[in-house]
């Protein structure tokens, strides 16, 4: 059970406090409800580029990182299709420094053209490192637009194309900031060796005077239901062929989303899973095949990714894969109970760090239901076998699937 208290400042900034006094440590997690889905199709990769620029200097603080490191703190950030999340961990007696830094960069950014150019180059190298210089690295860059034909989830947070990043101007960057970086579009989670009173006082002091802003959110086009299977074939410098599938799923936070998540565990979590038993062992059709959900605020995806074993064909793999998926419908109550026990234990282990609890609170709040952090395990436990089979039948229907065939060049 993650206990927390919350309050909201007049400017709309929501603040959540989770106390844990075991260690002299605090986590400050600031989540902005902006992600790559908020980008224009001709300006993709912006939310992520922006996350990088947030470390390049704000109105009153030229160097964010060093100011934090000087008091023993460390930080990082990540950008998804829906949110951008910044987190700090630092000794709890230095908490105010985190308030100073986070509030200043919410107030406004201040960096030079030179900084912008250097950071664009860093992001381009990140693009190469993660997507172009890895075997199969570009698979999802290619598959997303097939799977999402109208929704902006069709591009990855890194962006559609390197040129979008290369062309980003100072004006673009400023516009993006004032459209989305605002107290009324953020939630601040403070966790660890802190007190509610202290957080109230510091929040008012540092964030209270930041004006709320008019947000530039527009109504996103929703993806229509897919009615027939889609496929695409690409080739590249890879050692073996591989198959990538995406299925449309319910949005994060809904009951059906958790059913889907549990289904992916049944399929591929560990050595008792259906994939391991039937495809890695069993018919030996793949050395590595996984299923997982990609949680998103609008309807998201279930991914299945498998490399074809040497000497086996793609057709053999796919027919083995489909036979294995069908085994979901023959599962017993006992199989379901086992996976629930495993999910519950892994949740307990994951919650042992303050950072994970803080991020959990922020992510749940971002979908509008902060209590999800405490309901999640009960939801998993309450799922029935019938429900699992019903959702599996709906989600894993071939007509709901987009497949990318990755061939050896």
């Amino acid at each position, binding site marked *: 059970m993650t206990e927390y208290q919350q309050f909201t400042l007049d400017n709309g900034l929501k603040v959540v406090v989770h106390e*844990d006094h*075991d*260690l002299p*440590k605090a986590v400050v997690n600031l989540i902005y409800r902006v992600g790559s889905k908020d980008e224009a199709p001709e300006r993709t990769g912006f939310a992520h580029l922006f996350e990088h620029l947030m470390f390049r200097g704000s109105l009153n*603080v030229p160097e964010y*990182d*060093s*100011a934090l*490191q*000087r*008091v*023993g*703190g*460390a930080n990082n950030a990540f950008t998804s299709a829906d949110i951008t999340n910044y987190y700090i*961990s630092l*000794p709890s007696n*230095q908490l105010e*420094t985190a308030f*100073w830094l986070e509030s*200043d960069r919410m107030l406004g950014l201040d960096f030079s053209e030179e900084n912008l*150019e*250097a*950071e664009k*180059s*860093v992001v*381009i*190298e990140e693009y*190469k*490192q993660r997507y172009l*210089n*890895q*075997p199969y690295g570009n698979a999802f860059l290619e598959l997303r637009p097939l799977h999402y034909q109208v929704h902006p989830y069709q591009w990855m947070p890194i962006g559609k194309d390197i040129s979008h990043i290369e062309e980003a101007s100072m004006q673009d960057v400023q516009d993006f900031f004032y459209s989305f970086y605002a107290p009324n579009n953020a939630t601040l989670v403070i966790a660890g060796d802190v007190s509610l009173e202290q957080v109230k006082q510091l929040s008012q*002091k540092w964030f209270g005077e930041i004006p709320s802003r008019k947000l530039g959110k527009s109504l996103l086009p929703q993806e229509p239901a897919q009615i027939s299977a889609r496929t695409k074939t690409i080739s590249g*410098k*890879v*050692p*073996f062929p591989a198959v990538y599938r995406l299925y449309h799923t319910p949005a994060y936070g809904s009951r059906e989303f958790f059913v889907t998540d549990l289904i992916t565990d049944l399929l591929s979590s560990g*050595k*008792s899973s259906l994939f391991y*038993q039937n495809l890695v*062992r069993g018919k*030996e059709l793949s*050395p*590595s095949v996984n299923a997982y959900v990609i949680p998103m605020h609008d309807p998201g995806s279930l991914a299945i990714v498998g*490399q074809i*074993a*040497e000497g086996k064909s793609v057709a053999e793999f796919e027919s083995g894969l489909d036979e294995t998926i069908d085994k979901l419908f023959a599962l017993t109550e006992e199989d379901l*109970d*086992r*996976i629930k*026990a*495993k999910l519950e*234990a*892994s949740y*307990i*282990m994951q*919650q*042992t*760090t*303050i950072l994970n609890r803080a991020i959990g609170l922020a992510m749940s709040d971002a979908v509008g239901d902060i209590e999800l952090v405490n309901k999640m395990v009960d939801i998993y436990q309450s799922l029935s076998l019938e429900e699992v089979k019903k959702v599996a039948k709906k989600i894993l229907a071939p007509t709901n699937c987009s497949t990318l065939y990755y061939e050896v060049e």
Partner: protein
Amino acid sequence: MPLNRSQAPIASPLKALHLPNFELIELNNGIPLYLLPYGKAEVLQLQWIFKAGSNFLAQAGLASYTLRNLQEGTQERTAIEIAQQLDQYGAWIGHDVGNEQVSIQLSTVTQQFSQVLDLFQEVVCQPLFPEAGFEQMKAQSHQNLITAAQKTSFQARRKFGHMLYGPEHPHGKHLGLEELAALQLENLIDFHKECLQPANSVLALCGRFDRDQVINQLNQGIGSLPLGNAPHLTDRSAMEPKNLIDTYYIKRPGPQSTVRTGYLSLGKEHEDYVGMRILVTLLGGFYGSRLMKSIREDKGYTYGVYAALAGRSKVGQLVIQTDVGNQYVKDTVKLIAEAMKRLQNEAPTQSELELVKNYMLGQSVNQRETAFQLGSILRYHIATGISFTEMDDRFEQVKAIEAAKIQELAQKWLKPEAMLSVICGGNS
């Protein structure tokens, strides 16, 4: 009063942290048991540690392959039954191969510990090593190795280790395709029989548990085993540090190259070790390091660059690695050497040194947050003999180091002109 935002809030001095005390007892048969109660979360980890790490082994991959095969089946249970039983109780069996020792770990929620303890013992003591599972695992590894070899970072790391230590040294040997093909089931069975003997082991329990109850349970199982004989193993890691100055190029298509460069350096036992940790952190150990500032922030050549001192007992290694656009390789190599020379030519400012020290001290709390992390610290103590008090003392040692000392260490230990480099990528 209006808020002065250009002024940092007053920083408080960093407080030293102290590792909690552990207790060391013996089970009925003499196996040492470390007990370390830690944390609020109802989880725990039992580690069974054997003194048979890679330093003692002639064959690459032997230890890790043996440990992976433990869960392939026992006298009592098939692989699937083992996996299902672990799931049912929300437990995991993992392993770790270190230089000095190997360990097999049972991680579980406290409430279920007694349900899986017998299974854990069975997996470690009575594995069947079935032929079919072994062959399938090898086929799987074979393909995974071919895939990993497509990555420039993987190739650079392997070639570097191979050249730096020589192909016969435990740190220079890797499980490649040839070594994998040579690995036989008999080798695993022999290793298990010889090295995974209770006489050669210690147990370490960390997390939330009822002390008397756990001791009682352990005595009924592992504590009742015959000890067997401890093996006579030869440490193969001793070597004369030699200076290999050379650059190897591996050509691979792609937009980036991995640059890996470094040399053999001091080990953990050396008196300069703590100071060197600071120096290497300053050079490339965190976001605010010299190399990150120059190669990432100023030039934009890379998404990341790091420098690390691999602290082995006697001979360690200093390594710098980065993935950069092919067109930046030459300049990157130059900038790495320049950063090292600058540390030799001028002492860091007080301000910069304070920053890096505070960063290191402040972050030490993150390495000791969970029972599992404390378990790793305990394992480190068991492997190296470095006591918790000595680890705690490092806080004061780090605080005490002065800028002139950092420059002196840079002059003594940094060798920008005498490095071994491997460059793997599109422009090589």
